[in-house]
């Protein structure tokens, strides 16, 4: 469904993403793990154009999207309208939620359908109430984010992303900013979503995601994929990659 070919990104001398190839099929759940600064988040942000690539291509259903080429063949980000259209089909959930603080939970979820999809208030509300119910926060619909717990905020953020009916969901460390006792509720919400067949990429330090949800686990370090495989392989005793082993020893 989405394919990244030869993606590269550098900040000055620092190589964040180093010629990465990734192909995601519909319904697939990919979990990316790895130490901080390994380029996981940058790669994720590239997929919805919050970071621009220095080199490489993004293909959606087999066609190049999001970038034109300059004379030297380097990628140049497409017109804003095109990028916005693409983003509207890709849901993203951030580590720090980034809910709109001046809007209630319901208004946060409604905002996309209302402003981007230009749906009527009635329709937007119906969709949003449905999604808030799904993440179990219908009773908090009129509450402002400041009065919600971290876990509740993240569930509203998930509902907000789902309100755009995205083809794929990107989770950028969705539980890293949560108190340990609140991780469960967000984990379960994402798990429910996975069981419904949503295509998703999860960048995380929470190995539970890799073990329970991942169809494929990618270990990333220094900007490229060091290991790629099924969860069973990663967490088995036969794992022989020393860097993966060292990392897992620390986090497990």
């Amino acid at each position: 469904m989405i394919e990244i070919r030869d993606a590269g990104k550098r900040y000055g001398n620092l190589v964040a993403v180093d010629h990465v190839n990734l192909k995601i099929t519909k319904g697939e759940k990919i979990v990316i793990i790895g130490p901080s600064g390994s380029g996981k988040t940058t790669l994720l942000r590239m997929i919805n154009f919050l970071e621009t690539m220095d080199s490489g291509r993004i293909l959606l259903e087999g066609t190049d999207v999001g970038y034109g080429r300059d004379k030297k063949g380097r990628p140049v980000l497409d017109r804003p309208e095109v990028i916005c259209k693409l983003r509207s089909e890709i849901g993203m959930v951030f580590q720090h939620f980034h809910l709109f603080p001046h809007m209630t939970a319901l208004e946060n979820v409604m905002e996309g359908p209302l402003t981007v999809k230009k749906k009527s208030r009635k329709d937007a509300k119906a969709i949003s109430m449905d999604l808030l119910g799904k993440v179990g926060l219908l009773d908090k619909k009129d509450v402002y984010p400041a009065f919600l717990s971290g876990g509740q905020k993240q569930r509203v953020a998930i509902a907000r992303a789902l309100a755009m009916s995205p083809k794929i969901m990107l989770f950028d460390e969705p539980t890293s900013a949560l108190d340990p006792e609140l991780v469960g509720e967000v984990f379960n919400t994402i798990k429910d979503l996975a069981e419904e067949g949503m295509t998703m990429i999860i960048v995380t330090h929470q190995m539970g995601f890799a073990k329970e949800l991942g169809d494929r686990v990618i270990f990333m370090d220094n900007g490229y994929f060091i290991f790629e495989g099924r969860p069973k392989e990663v967490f088995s005793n036969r794992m022989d990659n020393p860097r993966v082993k060292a990392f897992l020893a620390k986090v497990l």
Partner: protein
Amino acid sequence: MEVRRSVSVLLCTLAFFSLFLTSLASAAEPDTYEVLALATRYMHDGNLDKALELFQKIPPPGKGEDGGVFVRARMEASKIYFIRKEYADSARMCDEILAIFPDNLEAGNILSQVRAAQTPNWLRFLKDMKTYLPTLLKASGMTLVLVLVTMLVSPIIGLFIALGRISRAGELSSVFWFYIWIFRGTPLLLQLFFIYYGLPQLGLTLKPFTAAILGLGLNYSAYLAEIIRGAIESIDAGQMESAKAIGMTYWQAMRRIIVPQTYKRLVPPVGNEFIALIKDTALVSTIAMVELMRAADQIFNATFNIFILIQAALIYLLMTSIFTISFRKLEDRLGVYEAR
């Protein structure tokens, strides 16, 4: 026969005698004109006591007689008493005139001056304050109009400039930078002079009101633009990202997500600016606008009554206080979504 003769002789004698007595009496009483002239001479020589005595000797006119001399005499006496600050006597002189000639304007005038002089300063000042309060309040109306129009116009222009500065639209941004540089970097008074007295030389003559609004508006837009720019830039960058992530364009994100979050943060600094604005409107008094400061200045020059200035100060304080309280309330209301 003898008796009748003696009676008639007696009558004649009596008549003659009475005639003699009458003429004698009129000769003993000097001519009023002469008394007036004499008294006036004493007055000019500086012998005020003697002058006063003589002036008051001139009697009120009898029925059908001309009262000119009497009025002159009492008037002069009243003035002398007035100069000596013997207000009761001065007033008594006027009263004597007015008792006979109630319509006498000059006596009436002096009497009111005497009364004014008799009242203590603070009482007179209080009376002035009461007299001129409507004038000051009317002028405050103009001050309020200037403030409200500027308050309405400058945030809109300011927001427009702030967005232009942030969006890095190359040439636009440098134009706005220049604008802010000029209007924040020079005195408002100079800007007002330039617009009202300077522009006519370039062929553009503006009415005082238009010039005042233009000057205040341009100046305050520049200040507000920088405040608004700061507020927008203070919003967490994650907000723009999450807005973009659900597919919003830059301007949709600005309008729906970023700018609305600045409102609460804007209230304290913008409130400050508006309070400064209330006071800065006093500057337009220099370009022929009659507002509170100008009115107070005019009345003060006419009365030298310090209380007029205090009164104007109190009206300014009232306006700034109302604004301060309103902005406080507004800030609370705009902050409903924040945890306390």
